[in-house]
């Protein structure tokens, strides 16, 4: 436990110096979804969906309609024939319904309740203007909520993840299997066909993410990470038990194995063009698609399981965990020249002792590799008193986090907010004509 990296109270690079607590939920908040530049929705086990203004923290709407907890939520950007954009969100609940909401009015547009099982995932295929619901079967819907077609009953456990692939295909994670479906839009109607089953995973697939048009990645409960070709659905690379030091002596020599499945399950995956970022157990791993290996990792990034990670544009990575904290990491590229040993004092200043040691030793062993990476902790956000389920990065507007403590917290850059308030203040002064002030 002591191996968890800590950062001192001084966090120069941490921009978040202001927070707003958004109260409203009465149970665990599990989902945050961005609607547009300044709005987002939160949903969770209380079955209520809240729409928030990301700038002001103002509660815009409170959407009631579900009787049970929300199991999936997806934004649906649709434009009418009139060209009018209306922001919709789809929500699925354990009450076996899916509701379509209008974000501008906060009204329920339509409700579908003909499901035989709970819908566990929702995917919108913008290109085809249809959306898919995945439960024990896969259904295809159009925007008007007409059921276009559906598969036969697949499994009782239901589809846990659904990702769009090129050529009108989707991949669904069903237990240990990946099933590729193809959507066919014929004049006589839509059809969905099962194309292929991929059975390479040894355990339940927990995460499924599309990297680009050519690749998607899956991660399973026992820590397998497989990179797939999105066109021919073949395995491009796999990182089975990639935490195992014996397999990666060069990169992660010191990582001790902890074989409990929970410690190794791939909770969440995200990617940019070059790398896949995996939340594995308590750690974070960066897997390079090009080098086909883990290039950086933080074995114990948090005190307990990492639930969600995201890559920021500025080479930063944010992770949140069951321990209630959110951490900001920076992927640093270290030109490791033997003539320039890294002064350890620098790292110690950041409370970076252990990682530093790893890096140094790793560096010695990988001197042939001219570059190496490491994840440096640049800040942590502590506010939630319980597991942070998810977060949503809003760029300069800040960061929204949701948690099992029923709260949504909006983290903001205090400097920026202060400046904005000044601007507002002088605008208001100008409006009032300075009449309120007696200088």
């Amino acid at each position, binding site marked *: 436990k002591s191996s968890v990296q800590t950062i001192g109270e*001084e966090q120069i690079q941490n921009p978040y*110096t202001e927070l707003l*607590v958004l109260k409203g939920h009465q149970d665990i908040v599990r989902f945050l979804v961005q609607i547009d530049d300044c709005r987002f929705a939160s949903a969770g086990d209380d079955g209520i969906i809240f729409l928030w203004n990301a700038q*002001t923290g103002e509660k815009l709407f409170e959407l009631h309609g579900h009787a049970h907890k929300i199991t999936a939520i997806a934004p649906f950007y649709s434009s009418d024939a009139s060209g009018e954009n209306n922001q919709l969100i789809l929500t699925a609940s354990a009450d076996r319904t899916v509701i379509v909401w209008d974000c501008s009015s906060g009204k329920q547009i339509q409700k579908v309740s003909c499901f035989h099982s709970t819908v566990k995932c929702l995917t919108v295929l913008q290109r085809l203007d249809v959306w898919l619901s995945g439960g024990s079967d896969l259904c295809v819907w159009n925007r008007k909520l007409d059921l276009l077609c559906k598969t036969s009953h697949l499994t009782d456990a239901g589809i846990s993840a659904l990702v769009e692939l090129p050529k009108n295909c989707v991949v669904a994670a069903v237990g240990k299997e990946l099933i590729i479906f193809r959507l066919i839009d014929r004049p006589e109607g839509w059809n969905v066909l099962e194309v292929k089953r991929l059975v390479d995973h040894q355990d339940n697939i927990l995460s499924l993410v599309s990297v680009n048009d050519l690749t998607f990645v899956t991660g399973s409960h026992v820590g397998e990470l497989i990179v797939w070709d999105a066109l021919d659905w073949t395995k491009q690379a796999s990182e089975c038990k990639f935490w195992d030091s014996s397999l990666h002596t060069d990169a992660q020599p010191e990582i001790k194995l902890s074989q409990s499945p929970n410690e190794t399950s791939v909770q969440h995956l995200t990617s940019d063009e070059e790398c896949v970022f995996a939340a594995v157990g308590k750690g974070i791993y960066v897997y390079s698609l090009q080098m086909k290996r883990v290039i950086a990792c933080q074995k114990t990034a948090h005190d307990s399981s990492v639930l969600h990670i995201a890559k920021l544009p500025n080479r930063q990575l944010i992770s949140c965990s069951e321990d209630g904290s959110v951490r900001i990491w920076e992927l640093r590229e270290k030109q490791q020249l033997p003539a320039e040993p890294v002064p350890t004092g620098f790292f110690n200043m950041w409370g970076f002792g252990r990682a530093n040691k790893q890096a140094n030793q790793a560096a010695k062993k990988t001197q042939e590799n001219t570059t190496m990476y490491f994840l440096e902790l640049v800040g942590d956000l*502590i*506010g939630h008193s319980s597991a942070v389920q998810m977060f949503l990065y809003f760029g300069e507007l800040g960061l929204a986090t949701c948690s099992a403590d029923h709260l949504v917290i909006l983290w903001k850059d205090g400097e920026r907010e202060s400046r904005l308030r000044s601007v507002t*203040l002088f605008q208001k002064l100008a409006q009032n004509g300075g009449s309120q002030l007696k200088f």
Partner: protein
Amino acid sequence: MISAPDVVAFTKEEEFEDELCSEPPLPEEYSVPLFPFAGPGANPWSKVASSKFTRDFILISEFSEQVGPQPLLTIPDDAKVSGTFDLNYFSLRIMSVDYQASFVGHPPGCAYPKLNFVEDSKVVLGDSKEGAFAYVHHLTLYDLEARGFVRPFCMAYISADEHKIMQQFQELSAEFSKASECLKTGNRKAFASELEKKLKDLDYTRTVLHNETEIQKKSNDKGYYTTQAIEKANELASVEKSIIEHQDLLKQIRSYPYRRLKDSDFHPYEPECGLDQAHVSCDQDLTTSDLAEPGEMHLYAHVPSYTPKLIKAKSAKCFDKKLKTLEELCDIYFFTQTLDQLHHIERTFRGDVCYLLTNQISRALLKQQSLTNFLFEDASLLDEKAPEKPYRGCQRFSQDAVNRKCLEESPAPRVVISLGSYKSSVECVPIKMEQEIEDSQEPKMTESITFEHQENLDYLDADIKGSISSGESIEVLGTEKSASVLTKSESQASLPISPSPQVGRSKVGSRRTVSEDSIEVLSTCPSESLIPEDFKASYPSAINEEPYADDEEGGLRFSPKLNLDNADEQEGSSKQENLLQVDSACCIGKESPTFLEPLPDLGQKHCDEDGVVSIPPQPYRPAEQGLHGTFAGYHSHDSVSGGLLPYELDPRYLAGSRDVSKTSLDECSDSTSYISSAASTCSDRTPSPAHPVIPVNERHKKKAGQNALRFIRQYPFAHPAIYSLLSGRTLIVLGEDEAIVKKLVTALSIFVPNCGVFAKPVKHWVTSPLHIVDFQKWKLIGLQRMVSPAGVNMLHALSRYSRYISILDADSKTLRCPLYKGTLVSRLADHRTQIKRGSTYYMHVQSILTQLCSKAFLFTFCHHLHLPISERESEESVVSRRMNFLKIHLGLVNEDIKIVQYLAELLKLQYIQEPGQGVNPLLRFDYVPSFLYKI
């Protein structure tokens, strides 16, 4: 009769003046008011210099028709307060100067008794022999069993300090008006239900009598009426008449212009749910709509439990029956409200007048700082803004100012009359006059005159109400303003007095006298009313009202011309009505002309706007010389003072701190607070039962200041702790003992900036683990340390959120918080401070915090510090300009900058907050290391 004005008490004054004259006189505006009872060696701050009571109190008296003036109750209800002061005697005094012309009677030409809604009168009078000065508020309550249906009462604020009464007249008047309004509202309610019962009785009696008559008729076979039968018939007729009269009264009482309450936006006494008001208006509707219906059952529908009684033909002599008590006269809810209000008045006006004045001045100044005052000022002070504005008193005040201005232009010489002439004029007013006047052709005009005069009274009630005692020590009091032109020499005093230029108030002298037998107040008339013509002219105004039945508003109708001219003022005075005398069932009013009172004809307006008859200023009458002597003597110190009372505070303040400078710290808290309370506000002595929640009262301030003083002396790390509070970092006071923790929290609370116009973000005692939301909401928290597992949880939470909080451990005397290297706090909390008293320290803190606020204000509202001057200017240069400003212009060092920045952020948030839209409270924090401080 005016032969014995009271001069005795002021003999000392003269010696004193002589001493004073030997020194070069200070310019008027710098002079400090002299203590009226000052003598060599006398403690100028002992309040009880010559009075027999220990402190100010409120007295409610009644002019009982059975026993004459009698005191009913005092507030506070404590025998110690009034001491040896003769309440009976004083009641006699104050009740004998009732300006109210409470006429109730049969208006000629009107068949029925008529109620009128009389405006209260407000008088200042002094009894220097007793050392008592009083603001006296006369009011009448209705009582069915009383003579003329009215019972005169008065509420008096009695103080040993004449200045206090004079200077606080407006405020006293406003506050007492509230109390009176409340009492009268309750009384009307009680009166209405009384009438309803009576009507039931009468109805029942009529039925019984009717039956008896029928029986007699049947049995009567002699063909002529027996005397018995005639008697019965007469009786029946009188019952019928009585019923009609009572119905009429009921209608009248219900037609009371509630509109006036609505207009004033002042409803402090409506029952919480507004039920009562609704009830009343509902009743009104009911009665008005049902009046046409024959069956009156409706009317009484809501008092079904009442069993009607048979009313005897001849009611008992009025001296035999017991009159209702004040409590019985008023609806219980309103009665308690009134008492609450009176207690509130008593508390509000406690203490020295200079203290009150300073408070008022600073309050007025604070209101101007609407942008920053929320930060450190009491929310309670700021809240007062709201109710004060709509209140009538304010309006009146401004109108008063207009009036004053107007009057200043044509200064009215003081009108003085001799009692002799006055009295005789009263005596020779024949009662028959009413009838003649009724036929006079000038009703409108006279009406407007009266109206004007009353309006004058209304607006100028801050002005002199003179009274002439009959050989006793009641004396006329002028306002300090009038007195300031009175010079010390007696000869000058005999000159007509005109308003002094530097003061705004007009002089409208109104005189009153007390007749020897002190049965009835003679008049409230100014001199002109003594002139028979005037008397005639003004008197009928009361009877020229249109019958109330036509008057939907239940009020008086004024001539349209007047309405136009006084559109605004009318609001305040349209209820000015005069009571007419009624022949009540049991009373003797009719037979006794002595009880006929002259009409109030108060005040005199010299700048009549509408060209109605104006009364020329009366020439000075030499008969008043003696009295003026009193004036001059009495008010001479005023002319020296120039009204700069607030300065009085300083010597006391200094002397006070010197007094206790030797007491040790530990004694300090108690002994000094006692001393200070004795010296100034007395607020410690009586807990306030009526308003238990006053956010920050004097006592709290004192206590907080005292605790804070102790804190900064005991804890060497007081500075970083205070810095935490000022920079918006939540400070947690952790401890096992609730009392200790609360004490610390109280001490530190004076440093906590408010986040809005709400109460301070201070939580005195928490026992559950804290969450992030708590830090957002509270900036100072007292937290219980527990040994249980819950306690472990709590400590865990504390260490988890340690970046947001500073922790002051009261048990181990440690503080964990960021470093502070600024200079600001050391001025705020110098452990070597010479300040000894809690309230003084509180003020010291307030003054430094106010300074800080002004810095924050400057910083916040300087445009270029936050926004680029030109389009191309980079953000960096703005930032550097900003920092330069903070460091160089505001002279802030190190962490002081963060304090001002935090305050500026609060100011911004407050300013940009949209009204009505709740703003999410922010939590701002820094990533700075904390350090552990130990003693």
